[in-house]
């Protein structure tokens, strides 16, 4: 928290109230405040900084220091709409200033051209909402480049023959290769594939106020103590604060967007830390609360004029939820890799990004990468080979041998948008504030599972070609837990089949905008944050242009 921050009164009608300070909210706050607007960012979580980040697995994983809390914010889950949902933790997201970008792994793949227009290329897929985006890769390319240069992404342009066109190289070289990366690179080349240095939103070179990665090994789940991970906290929010026009207001849990009798948003109602309620007035509201909380907030904001929820004349708010698929395929090698050192991923390949569904017999595309993203306790509980005793001498011996010698080749892939996969309000369960809890409905499309199983076989081939002593995996199963929360307020030109237009403006409420994972029309191949951030930069340009033309207020 810097001294430069203004303190707006709730009665002070600011230009923009932004709900959520994560990958999208942080960037919108920076862009709009830099463009001269007065901005309040309402973040439900606390304002933590580098000094608060530790290597404490228990604090981070068991106590949810950085994430949504299953007791305060319980949710329910069911596979299909005809089931009664049961209370079961089904989603996780960052709940602190910077949002999920604070604790993510920082894989920063761009989407490719195909992700925006695949429906046109391969035709419809029965029973799904598979469709094209209203924008193309070319529309987003300048913003991908902006993300890479402004927040800091390490990588090597031109290293993958499958990479989409780019207007500029990466601003800094790839991070140093890990043993898993070398094993993966050599084996994949042997197989005739095209591994390349993974693009990561982690600094390989220092930037002002931020260290380059020190390879501490506590990446996924943890906040970065040296500011090397390019979270919104370490990047955009710092700049937004320095404009003197942006207030970051933590511990502010927005539960309702209020509208006037003309159907315009007038501000955001929220609980402060003591659960007192306030209404922050704003000329326009931008919701960046993630693919779960954004649709929930719209549904919670139902009123007489908007009985199905705000911006929900289409009835699809919360629907078409997509997770991506992910499966680790483990391998144990003869010599120590020491994957516990360093960031997660140093090599990736995209040879299977775009496949022909006619030839394959199913839809799907994705990538493979080399990694381990388990810290010691998590490793001991979940990463030993099948058949390993779970206690006693042999358990200890396996743990002692394998901890330094294990790596994953992980599969990442598409999820098809299904209308029945959704977030909705649970009719019974309430959160600690008395608000209806999230209810998740999710069942993977059969093709998502078929493709994942196919990709698991490719991952095993990598281990085979690399001479792994042991390798194992489990078949793809239907997912009941998501961290990539995508597609629930999809973008489109038709107000009947989408929630926002290509400017991120809701079709129904002129001064209400949505930008986060919920905006995505397709899932991409496994790493959505880069695209969420590029969309945020683009949305900021669009919203600025609208505001300057006087097309937002009244």
């Amino acid at each position: 928290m810097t001294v430069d921050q203004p303190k707006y009164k709730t009665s002070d009608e600011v230009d923009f109230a932004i709900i959520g300070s994560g990958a999208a909210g942080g960037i919108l706050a920076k862009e709009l405040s830099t463009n001269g607007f007065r901005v309040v960012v309402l973040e439900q979580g606390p304002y933590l900084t580098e000094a608060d980040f530790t290597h404490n697995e228990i604090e981070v994983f068991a106590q949810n220091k950085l994430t949504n809390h299953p007791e305060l914010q319980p949710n329910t889950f069911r596979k299909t709409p005809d089931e009664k949902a049961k209370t079961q933790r089904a989603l996780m997201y960052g709940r602190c200033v910077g949002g999920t970008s604070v604790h993510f792994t920082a894989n920063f793949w761009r989407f490719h051209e195909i992700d925006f227009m695949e429906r046109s290329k391969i035709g419809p897929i029965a029973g799904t909402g598979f469709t094209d985006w209203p924008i193309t890769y070319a529309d987003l390319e300048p913003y991908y480049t902006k993300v890479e240069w402004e927040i800091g992404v390490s990588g090597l342009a031109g290293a993958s023959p499958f990479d989409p066109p780019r207007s500029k190289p990466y601003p800094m070289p790839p991070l140093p290769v890990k043993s898993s990366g070398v094993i993966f690179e050599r084996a994949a080349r042997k197989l005739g594939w095209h591994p390349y240095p993974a693009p990561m939103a982690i600094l390989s070179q220092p930037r002002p106020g931020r260290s380059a990665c020190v390879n501490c090994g506590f990446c996924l789940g943890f906040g970065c103590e040296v500011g090397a991970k390019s979270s919104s906290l370490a990047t955009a929010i710092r700049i937004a604060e320095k404009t003197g026009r942006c207030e970051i207001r933590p511990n502010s849990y927005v539960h309702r967007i209020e509208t006037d009798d003309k159907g315009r948003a007038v501000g955001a109602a929220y609980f402060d830390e003591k659960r007192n309620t306030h209404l922050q007035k704003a000329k326009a509201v931008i919701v960046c609360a993630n693919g779960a909380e954004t649709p929930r907030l719209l549904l919670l904001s139902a009123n007489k004029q908007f009985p199905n929820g705000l911006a929900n004349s289409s009835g699809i708010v919360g629907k078409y939820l997509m997770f991506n698929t992910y499966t680790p395929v483990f391998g144990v090698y003869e010599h120590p890799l020491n994957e516990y050192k360093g960031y997660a991923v140093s090599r990736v390949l995209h040879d299977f990004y775009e496949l022909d569904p006619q030839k394959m017999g199913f839809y799907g595309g994705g990538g493979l990468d080399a990694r381990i993203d388990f810290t010691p306790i998590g490793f001991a509980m979940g990463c030993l080979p099948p058949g390993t005793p779970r206690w006693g001498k042999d358990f200890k011996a396996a743990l002692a041998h394998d901890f330094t010698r294990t790596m994953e080749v992980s599969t990442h892939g598409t999820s098809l948008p299904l209308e029945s996969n959704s977030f909705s309000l649970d009719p019974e369960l309430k959160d600690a504030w008395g608000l209806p809890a999230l209810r998740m409905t999710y069942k993977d499309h059969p093709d998502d599972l078929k493709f994942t199983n196919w990709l698991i076989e490719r991952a095993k081939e990598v281990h085979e070609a690399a001479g792994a002593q042991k390798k194992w995996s489990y078949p793809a199963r239907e997912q009941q837990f998501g961290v990539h929360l995508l597609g629930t307020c999809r973008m489109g030109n038709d107000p009947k089949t989408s929630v926002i237009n290509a400017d991120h403006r809701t079709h129904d409420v002129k001064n209400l905008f949505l930008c986060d994972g919920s905006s995505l029309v397709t899932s991409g191949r496994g790493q959505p944050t880069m695209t969420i951030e590029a969309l945020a930069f683009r949305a900021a340009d669009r919203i600025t242009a609208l505001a300057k033309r006087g097309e937002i207020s009244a």
Partner: protein
Amino acid sequence: MTITMNQLNRRNFLLRAGTGLSAAWVSANWPALLSAATHAHEAAKAATPPKFEFFTPEEAAEIEAITARIIPTDDTPGAREAGVVYFIDRGLVTFAADDHKTYREGLPELQARVSEMFPSVPKFSGLSTEQQDAVLHSFDENAVAGQGPRLARPGAQNFFETLQQHAIAGFLVDPDYGGNHDGVGWKVIGREREHMFQAPFGYYDRDYPGWEAAMKEAAKK
């Protein structure tokens, strides 16, 4: 016959985790009792020398004996040297009543099992290590008929699983946070106790010639 990692995975992870065992899922579904550790850390800073606060000395001796079979001491340190029993004790002092119940009910269940199997020995800690292992194996749910007593006691089974997870956490948690005394757990698994590292990290990246050179090398083959 022991419950294997395979079955642990299937039961605890995969059935709910979906397409795979995801780190994110694991992190979201840690046993709630592990939350004790931060409190344990606070207690550790305040309390010198360590004193048991939840367990009686007798109970602590039993817990220590059990965790010492979960992660035994052989030519390298085990749960005993890592001070796992202190980690659990401090956690329980500062944590939810539900978890107290698991231990308060679980310990007598275990003792009852000891009396059934080895009537002449009053306590788990008084058994030989072979006898102790036999008692613990009897809690494994897939024990095959004829290979040992198979007694259905769900409470105690839950207790043993809880203890397994706590023993692992106490053995491997960052030593700054109330377990893994002197970093012995990390020494056993080969994790250097440094806060930052530099490449080369392991055996396979030591001789990596660099991206360009590796490309050229591959092209020659």
